[in-house]
């Protein structure tokens, strides 16, 4: 019996949309082809999944490696939501000396710290959060692998 041929259909990507990945709506069990596999809910849209509020979200590019241990490298893009309330442990964009700066925020009962994820960089400590200008909270890192 002849092997069934796998048809590979190549379609041009339209210029307007991001290349997208087709998502199966049901989990696929290994070894057993699900009869539902052929039904798709539409393409995964990165905007939908990575951005909660399109109005308050901005993408910025990282320069420097002080956040390396947080998995954020020089040249990566990070997604920042300006509407989120900064909480203890968040990676935030803070305004320091007129520049947008990436740090991890620690809110302790006695003081507030901005720390780099690299011991070579000193911490910035203040008494209360209101002394800092937090520009936004980082929600995702688009790391270049």
């Amino acid at each position, binding site marked *: 019996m002849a092997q069934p041929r796998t048809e590979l259909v190549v379609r041009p990507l339209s210029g307007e949309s991001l290349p997208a990945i087709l998502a199966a709506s049901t989990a696929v069990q290994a070894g057993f082809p699900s009869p539902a596999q052929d039904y798709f809910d539409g393409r995964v849209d990165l905007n939908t999944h990575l951005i909660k509020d399109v109005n308050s979200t901005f993408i910025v590019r*990282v*320069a420097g490696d002080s956040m390396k241990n947080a998995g954020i490298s020089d040249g990566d893009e990070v997604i920042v939501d300006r509407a989120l309330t900064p909480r203890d442990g968040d990676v935030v964009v803070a305004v320091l000396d007129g520049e947008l700066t990436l740090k991890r925020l620690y809110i302790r009962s006695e003081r507030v710290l901005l720390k780099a994820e690299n011991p070579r960089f000193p911490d910035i400590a203040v008494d209360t959060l209101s002394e800092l200008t937090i520009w936004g909270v980082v929600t995702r890192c688009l790391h270049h692998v």
Partner: protein
Amino acid sequence: MFDSASLPESQRRIALVDVNSFFASCERVFDPSLEGKPVVVLSNNDGCVVALSKEAKALGVKMGIPWFKISAWAPSVGLVAKSSNYELYGDLSSRVMSILHEFSAHVEVYSVDEAFLEVKGTPEELVALGHEIKAAIQNKLGLPVCVGIGRSKTQAKLANSGAKKSAGLNGVCNLDTFSPEHIDRIMEALPVDNIWGIARRLSKRLNSMGIHTIKDLRDADPVRIKKKFGVVVQRSLYELRGIDCIKLEGERLVKNQVMYSRSFATPVTTRKQMEEVLAVYAQRVSKRLRKQGSVAGALTCFAGTSRFANEPFHSPYRNAVFSVPTNDPVEILKAASSVLLECVEDGRKYVRAGIMLHDVSPKTSHQYLDLFTPVHESRQLGEVLDTVMEKHGAFSIGLGAAGFKSPRHWEMKREMLSLRATTRWDELATVHAK
């Protein structure tokens, strides 16, 4: 979403939300070092000051002043100039408007940085709503706004300028929270040309009738005002009394006029160069038409030399009418160059030119005229040009004289342009990790 449906019609009010020093505030979003500094934004080609921060106003810089007149002085006072970053302003503007839609089902976008909203509630509720709107735009975008609330658009405008000027209001002013005597005092203190829609020239005529302040106009005889100044001024009078006469408009489907006009980076001095300019502008203006699916019935074409040069000011200005409404770049170019080029003189230094299309209407309303459609239009030449330019760049294809040369020397100069950080992947703002 603010639920206004359950409230009585009598509590319906108009709110005017506008961004303080919009262009300058946009420049500060990705560059916090500009916070508190005097900032000006320059027109096309870094020509004149078109926007100022309040710090720049405090230095005495005036709107419209040519940049070259203050550029030498600027560093000594820490004044920072930026080229117009239309991409950034446009994106932030659309974010502002989209946030405003969360607060009211009825929003009239009035300009790039202001919108009228229909709102309902008690005076106190509306002040709270105003603060909520202000906080939302500040938190989400980092842009400062003021909110004015009144019973009419004119009252909302007045309240908005109050919100801007008196620091105690904290950016939100609802006229309903003031006593009638207090409103009298405010209106007595403001000259009549502070009213939305009352130009200075008109205010002089009003002055001669004894109407000097806003209160004078509000309390004038409406019949007499209509007789002397027409229905527009009468409407302002009623609006000041709190009678809502100027309805909120939705977005207009087709704009009645489409224009493409720019200043040149270096002067254009020959008829041949001007023909090149018109060829490019015809393409660009017709693209705008096609984008909104419309055709134009007539055009105005103009060029001008500098008002600041030693040579006499020369500004030819010509009109042409199309036999059949069109959006075809070839037709537009033919019309523009045939009327304008004969008044363009070799040797003069032209610093700007433009094509304005009038009598713009949706294309579908002209379908019965198909027989008279120009040949190249029926071949959809314009659409082909648009597609090629989108795929291969703006200089890959051109009409006749516009040719392939790229980029031409008279193209726009934007030397102090900030990053187009929200519309260009290669210009994202930098966040430092150091």
